């Protein structure tokens, strides 16, 4: 589904530096042969050789990317650095505006570009379209290995990791007389009341655009204790009840709405406007990914005035944080120059410096985080959960019942929870029975 896509497009700003990459280089050369021993030795030898001499890699590849706004600037810089490292190679960048649709058409025509951002298919279809990436030696070092794996093979590496948290404008808090970010759910509501009294929108949601609401299922998964929540639906005919994780988790957003803590007219609140309102202090908080920090910055809010903490979903004083993956790098199974394509993916992950340039979190687990907001977030010692891919069965049923998670959250928030849940339970059960799952 489209959960990440809108998010990513906006997560990016400019910057420089390949510093991080230089540190990692020796590491790779040492690690890649050993890690890939289990996969395919020939391929890894070639990749390994290329790391040292840079002479084994020749030819040209095409790299299709969804990050169209960076094609002529940062991405070109990375490609130049790659070509300088491996003389005689050529990487053609192809920025696609309507990325997912374009790639899906090419999938049907069996004409995928060599390197691309992985477009989700059912898991058994992954080997049909994509090349395993196990021999890059990154398997144990990356987040979200499982997300794009099938039968033990890795087909995609997430391009960045996003952490969802409570993003807030420190100046707005100050104006409403709030010194500290909320540490419990009760404090969250109390702070919201203060903000509302000060004429500030306490919690921005960009409700109309709806994709920004998807993160509000995180509290439900926190309460459930794992990110299996959506997939575990398959075990029951009534997945949505007011007293289970869905009811309680979405209940937080619903209470905020019922008490008037969201935007005044939720159906005209868009993401474009919300960014500006958060930056100017017209709105105070939003529950969203860390990538939004750079959006606020580019809207004129100083980095020092941006706070980012875990969302208190109960009053226990313990915290959980949600990590979400992004588009993943993948290599086409029909590529004519797989070695070069793979070397490029490895370069982008380890050496490009992409994460530092764009204030995002590298998919490499041991990459140190420099952004203060992230270290602040981590100082709460939250238990981190990794988002999971939706299982094949659940996807089939959800598509059959035409389940739109964004609209679902909208309906629960403004409607009567019991009625909305009843409606969805009925559709769920019918679709599930029809498919015999």
């Amino acid at each position: 589904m489209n959960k990440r896509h809108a998010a990513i497009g906006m997560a990016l700003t400019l910057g420089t530096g390949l510093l991080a990459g230089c540190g990692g280089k020796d590491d790779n050369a040492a690690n890649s042969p050993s890690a890939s021993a289990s996969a395919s030795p020939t391929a890894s030898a070639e990749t390994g050789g290329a790391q040292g001499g840079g002479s084994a890699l020749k030819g040209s590849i095409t790299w299709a990317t969804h990050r169209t706004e960076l094609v002529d600037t940062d991405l070109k810089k990375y490609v130049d650095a790659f070509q300088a490292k491996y003389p005689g190679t050529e990487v053609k960048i192809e920025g696609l505006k309507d990325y997912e649709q374009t790639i899906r058409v090419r999938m049907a025509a069996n004409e995928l570009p060599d390197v691309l951002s992985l477009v989700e298919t059912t898991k058994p279809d992954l080997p049909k379209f994509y090349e395993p990436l196990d021999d890059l030696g990154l398997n144990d070092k990356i987040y979200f290995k499982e997300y794009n794996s099938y039968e033990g093979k890795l087909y995609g590496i997430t391009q960045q990791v996003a952490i969802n948290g409570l993003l807030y404008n420190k100046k707005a808090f100050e104006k409403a007389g709030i010194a500290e970010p909320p540490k419990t759910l009760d404090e969250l509501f109390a702070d919201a009341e203060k903000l509302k009294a000060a004429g500030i929108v306490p919690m921005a949601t960009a409700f109309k655009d709806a994709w920004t609401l998807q993160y509000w299922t995180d509290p439900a998964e926190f309460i459930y204790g794992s990110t299996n929540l959506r997939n575990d639906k398959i075990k029951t005919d009534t997945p949505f009840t007011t007293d289970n994780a869905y009811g309680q988790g979405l209940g937080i957003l619903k209470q905020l709405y019922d008490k008037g803590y969201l935007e005044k007219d939720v159906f005209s609140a868009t993401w474009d406007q919300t960014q500006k309102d958060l930056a100017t202090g017209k709105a105070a908080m939003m529950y969203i990914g860390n990538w939004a920090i750079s959006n606020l910055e580019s809207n004129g809010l100083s980095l020092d005035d941006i706070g980012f903490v875990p969302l208190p979903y109960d009053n226990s004083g313990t915290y959980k944080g949600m990590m979400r993956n992004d588009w993943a790098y993948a290599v086409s199974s029909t590529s004519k120059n797989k070695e070069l394509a793979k070397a490029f993916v490895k370069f982008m992950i380890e050496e490009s410096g992409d994460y530092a340039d764009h204030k995002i979190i590298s998919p490499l687990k041991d990459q140190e985080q420099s952004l203060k907001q992230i270290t602040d977030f981590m100082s709460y010692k939250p238990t981190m959960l990794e988002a999971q891919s939706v299982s094949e069965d659940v996807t089939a049923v959800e598509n059959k019942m035409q389940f739109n998670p964004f609209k679902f959250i909208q309906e629960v928030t403004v409607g009567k929870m019991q009625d909305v849940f009843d409606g969805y339970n009925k559709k769920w059960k019918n679709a599930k029975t029809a498919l015999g799952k």
Partner: protein
Amino acid sequence: MGNMSYALQKRILILLFLLVPIALLAVFALYPAAYLVYLSLMTWDGFSPEKTWAGLSNYKEVFSNKEIWQTFLHNLVYLLWGLIQNGLGLFFALLLNSRLRGRNAYRVMLFMPYIMNGVAVAYMFNYVFNSEYGSLNTLLRTMGLDSLAISWFGSPGAVNHVLGFITLWKFMGLNMVIYLAALQSVSSEIVEASLIDGATRRQTIFHVILPNITKVIELNLFLTIIGTLEIFDLPFILTKGGPLGASDTFLTKTVETAFHFNNFGMASAMSITLIAAVIVVLSIQRMVTRRWGQ
């Protein structure tokens, strides 16, 4: 060549000339249409190599799904505005067909919205109808009519009327221009004759001019009805079918089925259903207008 009969030569020539247009038609119209029918009988997610035979089950689902049929009610709202649009178009055409000072300037002004890009129109009205920052609500509030300054795109009752109004604004000029052309083709002799016989202006319009342009009225209604059944760009850009599906139209639903839920088989079946619906509605319209014309 020389001993070929004239008739044969003519036939060969005609065939050769027809080859190109028919090939173009086949490649860009007939083949896609046939493929659409084929897809509507399949289960396909849009990218995987295999398509499986589904028979008529896609159609059964389209016809049994209440949510899909409810979207036609939204299209009805557009139809209502479309009829008003035709009335206004005719009214302005009659007005601007008379000797009015500066009528060419008025014609240009009224036709202008039709030339504008649909997406640009959508964005423009997004600013007009925005509940907090929009010009309309600002105007209403300064006039003290705060209770009328509602969330135009946010209330299920209003949203389709707002969108219908925007289509009226955009397409009225087109209707007007077509009516105007028709009015100018009405022979001035019969109009003058009726005036000499003592008919009032109203009588002239209703008994002389309008009966002479029924074909064009029919054409305009035809365009309007097709337009309302196939309305897509405005709700897609402005509301994405929201709030909570209140402004979904049959086509936004079709596109969602195909590209959001990866159900191309059912989306194709919905497209065929829409074509069928258009044919049914238009035949009814033809029957009615023909009777009226006689």
